[in-house]
C-alpha cells in the first residue's frame, strides 16, 4: 500500500502548498487547486486505509504508522467539514501542512514487519474506541487552529495595527463559532471514546481503569474541554480567554497522544 500512500502524500503536499500560496496571495484559483488536490488525496487515502484493512487483516489503527496515517485522515475530514460549513479556507494553510507531515512520518516509519499481530482485534469495541479518540483529537486540532487565529486577529484589532495576514483570516465571530462547535464535537467524541475504552478494558481485563499516564492525561483533557464548553455556553468566557483555553487544551492533547508513550503504561500506541 506504500505506493498508494505516496500518491496520497503527493496530493496533500500539492494541496498544502496551494493552500499556503492562496493564503499569502489571496488567489481564488490557487484555493480551487488546493481544494481539488485535497479531495483527491482524501479519496485515495480512504482507499488506502480500506486496502490496508483487507490486506493486513486488522483495522488499520494499531501501529504508530497506521495511527499517524489515520490521524491525518481524520484531520482532512474535519478540515473539509469546516471548509464546507464556514468557508474558512484560511484554516487549511495550517491544517494541510500538518496533514502532509503526518503522512510523511507514516511513510518514514513504515511497517514494523508484521511480526506482532494485534491480539485484540476480535472485539468491535476496540476499533470504535481508537477511531472516536482520533476524531476527537482532530476536532481539538481545529479548536486549536481557530483559537490561534482568533488570538492573532483579536490582538491586531486591539492594537489597531494590521499585518499582512489580517485580511486573510475569518472574522472573530466565525472563528469563535468554529472553535465552539469543534470543541463540543470533540468533547462528545472523547466522552464516548473513553467510555468504550473502559467497557473494552473491563470486558478483557475486568478493570475499568488502569491508572496509566495516558488515561490520566485523557481525563485531564476531558475535564479541560468540559470546562471550556461550560464556560462558552454560559457565555462568561468568550473570545480571548476561551481561545487561550483552546490552545492549552491542545497542548494537553499532544501530551496525551505523544507524551504518554514515553512514560510507559499499558496503552501501547497513540
Amino acid at each position: 500500500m506504500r505506493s498508494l500512500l505516496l500518491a496520497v502524500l503527493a496530493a496533500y503536499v500539492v494541496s498544502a502548498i496551494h493552500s499556503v500560496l492562496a493564503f499569502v496571495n489571496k488567489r481564488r484559483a490557487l484555493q480551487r487547486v488546493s481544494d481539488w488536490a485535497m479531495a483527491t488525496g482524501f479519496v485515495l487515502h480512504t482507499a488506502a486505509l480500506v486496502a490496508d484493512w483487507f490486506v493486513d487483516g486488522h483495522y488499520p489503527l494499531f501501529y504508530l504508522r497506521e495511527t499517524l496515517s489515520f490521524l491525518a485522515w481524520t484531520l482532512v475530514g474535519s478540515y473539509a467539514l469546516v471548509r464546507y460549513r464556514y468557508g474558512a479556507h484560511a484554516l487549511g494553510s495550517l491544517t494541510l501542512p500538518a496533514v502532509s507531515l503526518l503522512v510523511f512520518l507514516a511513510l518514514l516509519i513504515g511497517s514494523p514487519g508484521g511480526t506482532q499481530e494485534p491480539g485484540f482485534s476480535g472485539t468491535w469495541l476496540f476499533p470504535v474506541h481508537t477511531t472516536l479518540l482520533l476524531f476527537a483529537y482532530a476536532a481539538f486540532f481545529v479548536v486549536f487552529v481557530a483559537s490561534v487565529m482568533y488570538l492573532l486577529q483579536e490582538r491586531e484589532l486591539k492594537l489597531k495595527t494590521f499585518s499582512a495576514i489580517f485580511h486573510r483570516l475569518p472574522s472573530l465571530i466565525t472563528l469563535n463559532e468554529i472553535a465552539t462547535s469543534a470543541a463540543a464535537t470533540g468533547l462528545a467524541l472523547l466522552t464516548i471514546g473513553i467510555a468504550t475504552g473502559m467497557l473494552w478494558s473491563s470486558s478483557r481485563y475486568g478493570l475499568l481503569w488502569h491508572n496509566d499516564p495516558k488515561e490520566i492525561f485523557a481525563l485531564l483533557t476531558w475535564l479541560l474541554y468540559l470546562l471550556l464548553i461550560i464556560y462558552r455556553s454560559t457565555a462568561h468566557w468568550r473570545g480571548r480567554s476561551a481561545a487561550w483555553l483552546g490552545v492549552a487544551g491542545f497542548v494537553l492533547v499532544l501530551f496525551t497522544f505523544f507524551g504518554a508513550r514515553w512514560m510507559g503504561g499499558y496503552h501501547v500506541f497513540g
Partner: protein
Amino acid sequence: MSIVLVGVNHKTAPVEVRELLAFSEEACAEGLRALVDGEVVSEGLIVSTCNRVEILTATTSGRIKESRERITNFVSQSRSLPHDLFRDHSYSHIDDQAVRHIFRVASSLDSMVVGEPQVLGQVRQAYSVALEAGTAGRVLNRLIHQAFRVAKRVRTETGIAANAVSISYMAVELGKKIFGSLKGQSVLLVGAGEMAELSARHLINAGVSRVLIANRTEESSERLAKEFGGEAVNFERLADYLPDADIVVCSTGAGEYVVTANMARKALNRRRNRPAFFIDISVPRNLDPAIGDLPNAFVFDIDDLESVISSNIREREREAERAELIVDSEVMQFQQSLRVMEIGPSLGALRQKLQDLARSEMIRQRNRLGHLTPEQESAIEALLLSTVNKISHPLIDRMRRSFDGGDNESIQAWREVFDLED
C-alpha cells in the same frame, strides 16, 4: 492605423481647468461626430469624468501630428476655450503608450484613489456613447473590449481594490472582521453628523438591519431615523440602548466622553461578552479610550482609522505594481492583434491579386488550347491556382510573421515590393 490619445487628468490639470473641459453626454456624441472626419481621425471616443477628460482616437498612421493638432483644436473650440489652456495642461500618448494609458485608466491604476471602482463604469458609458454616435469602429471596439478585460483581470488577480480607503467604509470593513457578516447586526449612531450618516449608509448597504439614533437635538435624529428606517432614541438614556448595539458610531460635538468606560463595561456584561465595535469619529473624542482595554470591546478613533487607511493605501500601491505587469502583457497582446487585424486584409488582397493574375493569363491563352472538356478546363484552373498558392504561401507566411513580430524594416520592404496599402 495609429492610436492617439490626448487628455487631462487630476495630475495635470487643477479642478478649475477640468470643470471647463468636461463634456456632457450629449456634448460627447455631438463632439465625436465633429471630430471623426474619416480622413485623419477615423474613430473616436471621449471619457469625461470629474477627474479626467480623455480623447481616444484611431488615426491614419503617418498623420499623428496632424491628428493631435486636430484633437487639441477640437477640444478648445467645442469648449470655447483659449487654445493654450488645454494644450498646457494636457498630455498626449501614441500607439502602445496610448493603449497602456487607456488600460490603466479602465483598471483604476490612474485614479486619484487607486482601485476605486467607478471609473470602469465611466469608460463603459463613454464607449456606449461612442457606439451610438457611430464613432467606435473595429480598432476602438477591440481596444475597449480588451480594456474591460484588463480591468477585470486586475480586479480579480490583484488586491488593488481589496481594502477600505475611506473612513465611512472602514466601519464596514472592520465590522466584517469582527462579526463576519453584518446581516442582522444593529448599529447605534450617537450624534447625527454627516460622517455618521455616511457610515450608517455603508453599514446598511452591508446588511445592518437595525439602526438606533441618539442625538441631543431630537429633530435631526427623527430626520435620520425616517431616512434610514431606524428608531430615534432618547439621548439621555444612551446607557440603556448601548447593550443592544453591536456597532456604535459616535460623532457628537460634545466636549466630554459621551460613553464612559463604566457604561461600556455594563453594556458588555449585559451583552454576555458578545463583542462590540466602537467607532469614534469626533474630535475631541466622545468615547473613553479606556473602553478599548475591556475584553471584547474594539475601539477605533479617527486617528486609528486614518492610520489603517494609510496602510491600506500602501497595500493598494504594492498591488498596483503587480497590476502594471498585467497591463504590460496586455498592451503587447493588443499591439499584436492590431497588427494581425491590419495586415489580414492586405495579405488577403495580395493573394487575390496573384490569383486574378493567373486567371487572366488563362483567359488570354485559352483560345490556343482548342476544345477542352469541362473537367480539363477546371483541371487547368486548379493547376494554375495551386501553383500560385504554393509559390506565394511561404512568402505570405514570412510576411505575416514579420508583421506579428513588429519587424519594421522588413514590413517596409514588403510594402514596397508588393505595393501594399498602409
